[in-house]
């Protein structure tokens, strides 16, 4: 184990101490202890930038299940490091924020920080491991810890609902992804992502290429809340705000983006990847931003906004596939560059916005936009934070969102010039969709800001007297917005330190040695189409925002019965009720129905196998002659059997059954089995006596109550079983391939067993083991009867007292 492995596992190890700290060091807020870890990890990961910058990577193997090729392989390249820095960096800020957000007295801090650390470790594992199975393990750990965090206030119905929903959706996606990983393993015979990238040609030609791609994309889309799987994210807003800021804006939802970026080198050659990824992303962007405008809850707006922004990043990743066909000129790689840049930007402004919303919630007692207003003068710092966050989100200068949005437009505009994947016909939709989505983004950003901070202050609507937040709660969002501003003015501190190495991971095969992608982000391009588009957004968006009340009606056009949430709920109840109904259909509680299934299954399986394999054969050779006695006995037996089945009274049936038994004994006599005949005679006598005893108290047979269909089914089933068993008997005796071992017993019964009665020697000597357990069975039966009757008497005696 090296320091790297320890770094990934350290949150899990640290989580073990948290409960003790929460219990015994009550005077200090537990968060202060937790804060140390992400800060240390951030400091640990930061110097690695120098390594990835020069194009080097770090790989370290810790053997876990070497026989299966599953090893805890840490692999650090540009992309992994970027995510690791985001996770630890934002993790530190969120921990600091949560110290002031969560009350030491009222909340259970131990579980909260245990879950949070678990999540942090899992997330680090997802982005830094090279082995897909280990990646999947950490992936599910993020789902699990996120489930625990969303349900943190488990006494609320909505928290539980949201937690269950997110778990169901993300885990279904995760399982799909596992399927995809296994398919990739089947193709390449390796669990290592780097190995897979080396075998990209093999994968591309394989028939399992498309299934593997779609399964992995399903995992990424569910985790990153893409259409139509985004529905869990708005409900996950029931989590405490630090959780929403961390999981649902900066890290977990980007796990899907990470996977898409990580598997781009493997899948992005194909047209399917290009179309699926970019269209799903674009559509999600428009859909999310459109629905964000409608929301009245601050966190819901942010949730839909996150959905929309993730869609935007994913669409850029989809478009970036073009560079694999054209080469690494800046003209085609701009999409990847923009995706990574926006990923960072989104983490800064969305994190700060969530924290600002948390402050508003914390200090006023509500998140409902209709109750808020006029907070600008009361909470000036929060206002400044929100202003920078929302303007950056809307893509306005002088904030970093502007730069990435411009680059987004650039990449979308360039799609129209592609001449591959049949883009020519529909390519114009890309910038159009991007532009429409951005207009809505502008509108909801403005709504978020101005409805909260401008207008009239309504103290009577608020639960608390509104006031500015404590300084500790303000520091983390201030740091984030400071980043958002400084990244606008100095974007190029990122370009060769983080963005270029990350691009190198997305296009590992494009570059020759010592080549670098051209990454230069400039604030001013001159008057370009992109700038005009932004100007259009501002103009149309402002008009749209001001006239919001006039066109709000179009949301009512969407029938409330057809929403995806309704579909999800319906689907769940349908599945529950459906399975209940199906189970109720066949689990009737009647033994005779179950017997029917068993026998019908017997007929279908054995009969089917017989028919398919053509197993029937009939040979007359080796058959003995049929004598007169056999014929007579058979006739007796048949008539006794018929009498048993059609008997009107129980006594007749028992006697007829006795006749069958004694005839069988006679058969044993004429087939020369004296031991069997003796035993059969005595046993038949005893069992008939027992039958008589048992049925003495029972009522008369009620044949009339049974319906005709019931009797017909029984008849058919019994006929089927009889025919099948008969056929089986004939076929197996006609196809005997080897001699019986009976000759051995006959030969050696005297000299090995010391007896002349072969049957008895077999029973007690050659195969005494069977006999021993048969007598055990008998003893158990006797004990069973004894205890059944005796304990029943005792219980009755007790109740009588």
């Amino acid at each position, binding site marked *: 184990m090296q320091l790297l492995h320890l770094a990934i596992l350290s949150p899990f190890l640290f989580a073990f101490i948290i409960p003790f700290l929460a219990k015994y060091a009550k005077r200090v807020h537990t968060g202060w202890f937790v804060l140390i870890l992400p800060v240390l990890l951030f400091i640990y990961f930061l110097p690695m930038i120098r390594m990835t910058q020069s194009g080097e990577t770090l790989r370290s193997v810790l053997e876990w299940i070497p026989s299966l090729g599953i090893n805890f392989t840490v692999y650090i390249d540009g992309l992994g490091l970027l995510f690791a820095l985001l996770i630890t960096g934002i993790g530190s800020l969120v921990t600091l924020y949560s110290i002031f957000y969560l009350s030491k007295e009222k909340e259970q801090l131990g579980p909260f920080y245990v879950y949070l650390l678990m999540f942090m470790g899992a997330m680090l594992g997802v982005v830094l491991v090279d082995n897909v199975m280990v990646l999947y393990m950490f992936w599910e750990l993020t789902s699990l810890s996120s489930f625990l965090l969303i349900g943190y206030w488990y006494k609320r119905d909505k928290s539980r609902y949201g937690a269950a929903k997110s778990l169901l959706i993300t885990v279904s996606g995760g399982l799909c992804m596992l399927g995809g990983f296994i398919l990739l393993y089947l193709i390449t015979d390796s669990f290592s992502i780097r190995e897979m990238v080396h075998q990209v040609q093999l994968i591309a030609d394989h028939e399992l290429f498309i299934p593997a791609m779609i399964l992995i994309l399903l995992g990424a889309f569910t985790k990153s809340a893409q259409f139509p799987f985004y529905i869990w994210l708005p409900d996950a807003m029931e989590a405490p705000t630090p959780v929403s800021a961390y999981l649902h804006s900066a890290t977990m939802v980007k796990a899907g983006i990470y996977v898409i970026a990580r598997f781009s080198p493997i899948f992005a050659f194909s047209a399917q990847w290009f179309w699926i990824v970019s269209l799903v992303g674009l559509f999600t962007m428009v859909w999310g931003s459109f629905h964000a405008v409608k929301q009245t809850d601050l966190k819901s707006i942010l949730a839909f906004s996150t959905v929309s922004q993730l869609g935007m990043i994913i669409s850029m990743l989809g478009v970036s596939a073009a560079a694999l066909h054209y080469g690494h000129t800046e003209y085609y790689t701009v999409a990847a560059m923009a995706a990574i840049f926006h990923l960072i930007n989104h983490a800064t402004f969305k994190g700060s916005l969530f924290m600002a919303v948390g402050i508003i919630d914390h200090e006023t007692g509500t998140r409902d936009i209709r109750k808020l207003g006029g907070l600008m003068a009361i909470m000036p710092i929060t206002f400044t934070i929100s202003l920078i966050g929302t303007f950056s989100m809307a893509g306005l200068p002088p904030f970093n969102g502007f730069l990435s949005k411009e680059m987004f437009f650039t990449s979308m505009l360039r799609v129209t010039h592609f001449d591959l994947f049949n883009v020519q016909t529909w390519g114009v939709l890309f910038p159009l969709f991007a532009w429409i989505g951005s207009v809505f983004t502008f509108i909801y950003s403005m709504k978020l800001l101005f409805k909260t901070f401008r207008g009239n202050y309504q103290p009577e609507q608020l639960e608390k007297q509104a006031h500015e937040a404590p300084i500790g709660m303000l520091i983390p969002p201030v740091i984030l917005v400071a980043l958002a501003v400084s990244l606008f003015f100095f974007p190029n501190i990122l370009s060769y330190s983080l963005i270029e190495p990350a691009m190198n991971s997305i296009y590992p095969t494009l570059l020759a040695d010592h080549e670098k992608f051209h990454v230069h982000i400039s604030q001013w391009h001159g008057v370009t189409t992109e700038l005009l588009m932004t100007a259009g957004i501002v103009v149309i968006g402002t008009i749209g925002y001001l006239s919001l009340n006039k066109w709000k009606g179009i949301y009512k056009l969407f029938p409330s019965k057809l929403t995806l949430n309704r579909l999800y709920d319906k689907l769940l109840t349908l599945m529950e009720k459906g399975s209940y109904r199906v189970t109720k259909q066949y689990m009737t509680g009647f033994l005779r129905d179950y017997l029917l299934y068993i026998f019908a299954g017997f007929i279908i399986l054995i009969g089917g196998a017989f028919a398919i394999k053509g197993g029937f054969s009939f040979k007359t050779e080796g058959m003995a002659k049929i004598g007169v006695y056999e014929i007579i006995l058979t006739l007796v037996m048949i008539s006794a059997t018929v009498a048993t089945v059609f008997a009107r009274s129980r006594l007749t049936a028992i006697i007829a059954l006795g006749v069958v038994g004694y005839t069988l004994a006679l058969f044993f006599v004429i087939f020369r089995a004296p031991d069997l005949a003796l035993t059969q005679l*005595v*046993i038949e006598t005893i069992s008939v006596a*027992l039958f008589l005893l048992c049925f003495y108290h029972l009522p008369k047979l009620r044949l009339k109550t049974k319906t005709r269909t019931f009797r017909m089914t029984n008849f058919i089933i019994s006929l089927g079983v009889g025919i099948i068993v008969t056929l089986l008997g004939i076929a197996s005796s006609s196809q005997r391939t080897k001699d019986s071992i009976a000759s051995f017993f006959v030969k050696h019964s005297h000299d090995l067993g*010391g007896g002349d009665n072969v049957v008895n020697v077999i029973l007690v000597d050659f195969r005494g*083991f069977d006999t021993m357990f048969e*007598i055990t069975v008998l003893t158990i039966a006797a004990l069973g009867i*004894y205890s059944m009757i005796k304990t029943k008497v005792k219980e009755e005696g007790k109740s009588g007292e």
Partner: protein
Amino acid sequence: MRQQKTNDIILQTATKLVSFIILLFSFYLFLAGHNAPGGGFVGGLITSSAIVLLLLAFDLKTVKSILPVNFIYVAAVGLLIAIATGAGSFLFGAPFLTHTFGHFHLPVLGNTELATATLFDLGVYLVVVGVTMTIIQTIGEEE
């Protein structure tokens, strides 16, 4: 159920005679089992049928006073004997349930074959007697 005691003198007298013959026959079947039809299983069944005959001719209490045996113990002892016979082969380093036999010259019987398998069969015999009698007595005792 029975209101009045009937006089079953013929049945009872016949039973006193016949049951001994049946017992002897069952004992014969048990011993002869190794070389002729018979054995522990049939022997046990017929022994219990002799006792059942006694039960039919007399009543439960009488038979219990004649045979003051708890038949569950009989079954248990039978199982023990069977297992002990099987495990006895361990003493000679042989696998479980390895049987052996030999011819001995006994004072009265002359040249006799003795086999460990007979001991195992004795276990079977006792189990069968114990089990059948337990079942019949338990059901019979129930009012």
